[in-house]
């Protein structure tokens, strides 16, 4: 029996090839639920209502291995926003909540996250 490294499984688990990732990342993300456009169930089923595709559906459409599609999707989900966005999110929530408590809906916070969090 061959070792995982001898079979090209360099990390033991399935990892997507970086070139394959870069080539298909945008297409895969566009087909998933990362950016949800018009998925409300009340929209008519005449093409107005849309939904994200499953990994199997994307694999079939793009002619890829489903494991590669899953990996491209999962890695891309992490890749969409940098860690700075997480810090900005914390500051946004502080500002939005504070603004609401000061003036309710009439005082909605509509600006960028403030430069300091605490």
């Amino acid at each position: 029996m061959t070792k995982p490294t001898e079979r090209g499984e360099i990390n033991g688990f399935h990892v997507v090839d970086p070139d394959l990732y870069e080539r298909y990342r945008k297409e895969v993300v566009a087909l998933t639920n990362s950016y949800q456009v018009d998925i409300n169930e009340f929209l008519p089923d005449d093409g107005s209502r849309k939904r994200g595709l499953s990994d199997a559906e994307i694999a079939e459409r793009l002619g890829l291995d489903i494991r590669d599609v899953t990996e491209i999707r999962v890695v891309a989900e992490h890749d969409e926003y940098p860690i700075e966005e997480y810090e900005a999110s914390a500051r946004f929530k502080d500002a939005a909540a504070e603004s609401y408590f000061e003036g309710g809906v009439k005082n909605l916070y509509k600006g960028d996250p403030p430069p300091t969090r605490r």
Partner: protein
Amino acid sequence: MTAVAGDVEETEPDNLEAITNAIKQVGIDAGSTLVGVAAADAFNEYVPVGHRPEDFLPGAQSVVVCASLGPTNAAWQSPSRRLMEITGYDFRENVSSIVVAEYIERTHGYLAMQAPALPTSGQQPPLSMMLAAVLAGLGTRSIAANIILNPTYGLMFFAAAITTMRLTPDHQLEENVCPARSCVRMYEMEGKTPCMAVCPADEGGCIDATIEDGEITSSFFDRERCSTRAMNFGIRGHIKQVEILTGIDDADQRRDLIYSDDFRRNMSSIGRYKESVSQCFECMRVCPVGRYRRKLK
């Protein structure tokens, strides 16, 4: 109807509705605020193969959906928004759904299981609890991050049990809960609803939509940005920090990051020790649906 361990009842068409109501009561008694039922095959119109009840329980007939409120009224009004980051979600609807599943198996002799709701592969849930809630008549999808709004309670959390038992399904709500009339008025004046104003997709937020004649005609939700807010601390933030750690050669810099408050908060979230799995409530804080209920003594 009283549940007796070991008793197995046949599902009689005549009393199907009574049995369904009794099962709902089991969910309520176990902590749910509301319980609804969807027909398992109702999912087929909305989701692909692999994400339908039948894919997890062959022969599935019904999905019993348990709903709970999440933050208490006082939590909504706390001046510290951090409070809801650590107390906004208590999983009681999950407990309720497994109690319902066990009850169905023990009392009625049909297969039943807790529906797989939490993502197992990236952000992808095996079965959508939001869709389950819609199909069970518990609410409709809103502009605000596509969150399901119940007409009475507004934001709710959902879990479900899938069963091979045929139950009387509830109907989907006939009218969209969102947008509320006050939101339509604001949209007509400012081009945004309160949720769109506080978290606008075109200005660094997550939400966008159009409304015509009081109805949603298009909607957009940036789930990945929302994740940085609603799951501010957790697996994703931790992975980001690990990525940075692997590139730091200086031992002091590594220590400062590992010992940092944000690293600890990510770890506590992963361990479900303190941080909630739902950490941003800003679009819901300004949502008028169910808000009147938050005003107590």
